[in-house]
């Protein structure tokens, strides 16, 4: 055995070898350095002077969005901001005076901006003026030498041509947030980076993978301060290196019609709510507007705190979409479905008459009709036309709630329509089983009476109502609503096309059901006694149903109170759902106006404006024919008035 010190000693030879190895290793490094710095030193030194290439990301332009008739809706536009970097600012006063002349701003105002940002680091540029004109831009570029520290920042801005019109449908883009980053990478298996813009809402979100292109790489030659040079020196080490061109995003064509969007938006001026219109033979969404709205362009530029505050403090919630992301009590618009259910189940036929006295005592509770004096003897067509509550309640009372629910669900209510837009709500059609599960209670027959007229638990969105009425118009076909027609690549080649998808075709047991329902809906608008007669429009021959949904459960003494006299918050929601032309339906539309009081006066004109625009644009001959038909209807009415002045239906339900 060795002692400790002997052990150390016998290892000494290896330690000496180690010191040789280490010296040799560093000798190797030094000889390499000699090779690089002395042997090739001059060459590499020249490279370092000439070769000022820098790798930069070239942002891919995002795809454009077009309306169904190829009108541009969403565009990319270069914008120029004038920025000032305090670090490089010399002769402050003089420079600012020059700048203020070019930008026609007060130089004090510029100073104020600088002062506001004085607490941040000096090398951080401050935006002096956003969106300068080409003239201002040219002046700044030419006087570059006299404006130290002033430069122009160019970027591609996402421009939504019609600003607030259709913002909820189009959505917006904004920078990926730190919290989104890992989720997105996981979801799309793509290497997102901070600073990337992605679609965050609506179509921009849903079609992000098509719209977003692929960023490229560029080698720019820069001067000693890192600024781009104007000429590119090709005689350098990187000869033969090609930049990677960015791949533009794909262009998208929507099913939406821009002119109808504008018509709908204008018709909703000053109102809160939504309108949606679909093609009944395909499910193509033609119009989708929600108001109040927001300007999506603001998001792509980085929201100003003021704009964001104005959006979130607005009591009407401009960011909320009223068509697919919200549901409401459908009110009387639901009566068409109650009618269908009762007719199909054989509980009523076209001749069944109910005597409406203005209220109906069911058990100990009185169920009121909106018309205090009652409708008298009422059959199906009259009940729809004049929106008689008692008729539909008595009809519904003859069947279990589950029978009613079966038909409502068959027509697309109580479940998502499956439109390819994010965050659609499902609405609600109650069943006895649902109530047991939700509340642990048995279904009460009285609740059926409320549901029959679209109150109580029943909830629906405008897109569901439009789909249901489209099915009434087209004989029971439920199409999945869709908003995107085609996706094209930048060469105009079709990449993907979306075709109508028939989800179900409802087999009606009784061939007369839809005929009489449609007749009722036709008379709502085109009979002098109909609830929407005074808002019927010209040349569209619309059929439809008005609806008024109570916001709060109305107590008996308030049932007949005038809606306009109530607090804004407790006023009824107004709805209208319809299709046109009644004799050859092509389009269905549903509108809601929050706290609009009457379906006829608040919601009907919106639907009418959209359908009128549609008929004029896409079916001008039919529109002209229908103008004639309208004239006949009007003449007959005037004749009948002269013969026996009847009391017209004044009230609205």
């Amino acid at each position: 055995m060795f002692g400790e010190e002997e052990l150390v000693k016998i290892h000494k030879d290896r330690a000496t070898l180690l010191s040789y190895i280490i010296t040799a290793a560093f000798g190797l490094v030094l000889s390499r350095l000699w090779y690089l710095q002395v042997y090739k030193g001059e060459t590499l030194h020249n490279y370092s002077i000439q070769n000022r290439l820098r790798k930069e990301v070239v942002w891919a332009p995002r795809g454009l969005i077009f309306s169904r008739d190829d009108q541009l809706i969403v565009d990319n536009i270069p914008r120029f901001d004038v920025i000032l970097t305090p670090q490089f600012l010399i002769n402050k006063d003089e420079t600012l005076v020059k700048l203020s002349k070019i930008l026609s701003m007060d130089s004090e105002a510029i100073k104020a901006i600088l002062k506001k940002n004085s607490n941040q680091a000096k090398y951080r540029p401050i935006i002096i003026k956003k969106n300068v004109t080409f003239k201002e831009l040219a002046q700044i570029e030419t006087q570059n030498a006299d404006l130290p520290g002033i430069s122009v920042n160019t970027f591609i801005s996402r421009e939504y041509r019609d600003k607030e019109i259709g913002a909820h449908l189009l959505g917006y883009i904004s920078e990926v947030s730190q919290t989104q980053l890992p989720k997105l990478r996981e979801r799309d298996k793509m290497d997102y980076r901070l600073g990337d813009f992605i679609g965050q809402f609506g179509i921009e979100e849903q079609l992000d993978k098509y719209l977003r292109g692929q960023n490229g790489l560029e080698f720019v030659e820069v001067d000693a301060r890192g600024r781009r040079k104007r000429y590119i020196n090709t005689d350098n080490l990187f000869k033969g290196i090609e930049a990677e061109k960015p791949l533009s995003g794909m262009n998208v064509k929507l099913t939406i019609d821009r002119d109808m969007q504008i018509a709908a938006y204008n018709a909703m001026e000053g109102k809160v709510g939504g309108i949606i219109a679909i093609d009944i033979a395909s499910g193509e969404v033609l119009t989708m507007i929600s108001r109040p709205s927001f300007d999506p362009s603001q998001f792509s530029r980085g929201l100003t705190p003021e704009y964001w505050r104005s959006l979130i403090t607005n009591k009407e919630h401009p960011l909320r979409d009223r068509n697919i992301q919200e549901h409401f009590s459908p009110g009387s618009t639901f009566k068409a479905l109650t009618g269908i259910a009762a007719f199909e189940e054989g509980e009523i036929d076209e001749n069944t008459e109910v005597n409406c006295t203005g209220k109906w005592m069911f058990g100990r509770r009185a169920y009121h009709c909106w018309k205090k004096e009652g409708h008298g003897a009422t059959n199906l067509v009259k009940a729809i036309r004049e929106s008689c509550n008692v008729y539909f309640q008595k009809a519904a009372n003859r069947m279990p709630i589950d029978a009613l629910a079966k038909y409502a669900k068959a027509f697309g209510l109580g479940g998502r329509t499956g439109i390819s837009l994010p965050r659609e709500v499902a609405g609600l059609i109650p069943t006895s089983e649902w109530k047991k599960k939700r509340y642990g209670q048995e279904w009460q027959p009285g609740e059926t009476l409320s549901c029959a007229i679209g109150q109580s638990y029943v909830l629906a969105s405008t897109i569901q109502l439009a789909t249901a009425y489209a099915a009434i118009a087209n004989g029971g076909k439920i199409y999945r609503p869709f908003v995107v027609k085609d996706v094209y690549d930048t060469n105009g080649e079709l990449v993907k096309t979306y075709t109508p998808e028939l989800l179900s075709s409802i087999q009606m047991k009784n061939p007369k059901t839809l005929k009489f329902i449609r007749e009722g809906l036709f008379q709502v608008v085109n009979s002098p006694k109909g609830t929407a007669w005074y808002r019927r429009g010209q040349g569209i021959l619309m059929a439809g149903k008005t609806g008024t949904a109570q916001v709060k459960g109305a107590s008996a003494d308030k049932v007949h109170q005038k809606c306009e006299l109530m607090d804004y918050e407790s006023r009824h929601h107004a709805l209208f759902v319809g299709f046109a032309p009644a004799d050859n339906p092509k389009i269905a539309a549903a509108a809601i106006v929050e706290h609009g009081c009457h379906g006829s006066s608040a919601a009907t004109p919106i639907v009418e404006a959209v359908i009128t625009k549609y008929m004029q644009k896409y079916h001008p001959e039919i529109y002209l024919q229908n103008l004639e038909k309208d004239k006949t209807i009007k003449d007959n009415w005037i004749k009948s008035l002269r013969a026996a002045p009847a009391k017209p239906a004044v009230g609205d339900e």
Partner: protein
Amino acid sequence: MNQRLVDFFKRYDFSFIGSMSAIFLVGILNLYSATHSQAHEGLDSLYKSQLMWFFISAVVAICISFLNPKTFERFSYVGYVLTLFLVFLVMLMGKVGMGAQRWLVLGPIRMQPSEFMKMGLVLAMARFFTKVNPEVELGFKELILPGIIVMVPAVMVILQPDLGTGMLLLFIFSMMIFYKRLKWKTIATLGVISVLSGVLMYNFGLREYQRKRIHTFIDPYQDARGSGYNAIQSEIAIGSGRLFGKGFKNSSQASLNYLPENHTDFVFAIFNEEHGFFGSVFLIILYLVFFMRLIWLATSVQRFYDSVLVVGIMSIFFWHAFINMAMVSGLLPIVGIPLPLMSYGGSSMLTFGVGVGMATSISNTRNFFN
């Protein structure tokens, strides 16, 4: 009293702390120079936190220097198991950084346990070789247990995936067994085996990006704008320094941001660009002084454990310095290995402090007995 203080300082071998401080001084100036123009990325104040880490590490080194080397011996395996546990924790819940799991986050502290693993491995090896047949020359039979001790952490680190650090563990290990008189026959056989396994590893074990690095190493110009970019820019930076360099804060490659990570892995390139060949000679001599002094210490201690431990500590820093300089100058493929005391990084600095502290403690004990 005064005499006792003088005696106390006489015991101290200031050569370790001295050369460490000298290299650090060069390093911090270089770091400042490399990052001063990168204010827009918030890197310009990195040197301050590097300074802070240096003082923390210096305090750690001084504290450790007061310990008796026997304490290290006693806690050798504990240290190994503890660091191994930390590496295991990273595998479980590490934060993803640069695509690999290397960081462990404990409240405000982010640490890279694979840095500490090197020290843990060295401690365990020193202990093992002094306890189990210390006089015997190593052959294959004697390598089985030490082999397991090194392979467990090495495989875990490689799986993170951090091929560079994993290989580093193996290099440190091989330097230690070389010192522990590995038979020349075994060295030859191991050489053949490692060449063969290297070929197999390349074909079956490497990830695409790792393979690409090797391609890039062989011909950086083949992919000059992708992965070869760093290698070329690094060579340009070094070469453009010529004999005397461009001067302090005058690196154009750094200020123009050509070199990515120029505050961590590529600091040596910036140093070369600014101070030229003579600057590098000076820096390398500083490192050599440090390593030679450690080897001298290893041969002049009384206890075998101390000797093996010092060789281990030396090999940690040698391999870091050598691999980093070789990769930056294009002698080796680019792997993420920092240059001790020059590259920015707290964990690496702390490992250095612990190593220097242990060496000082061992040297003090030696002087005490003399």
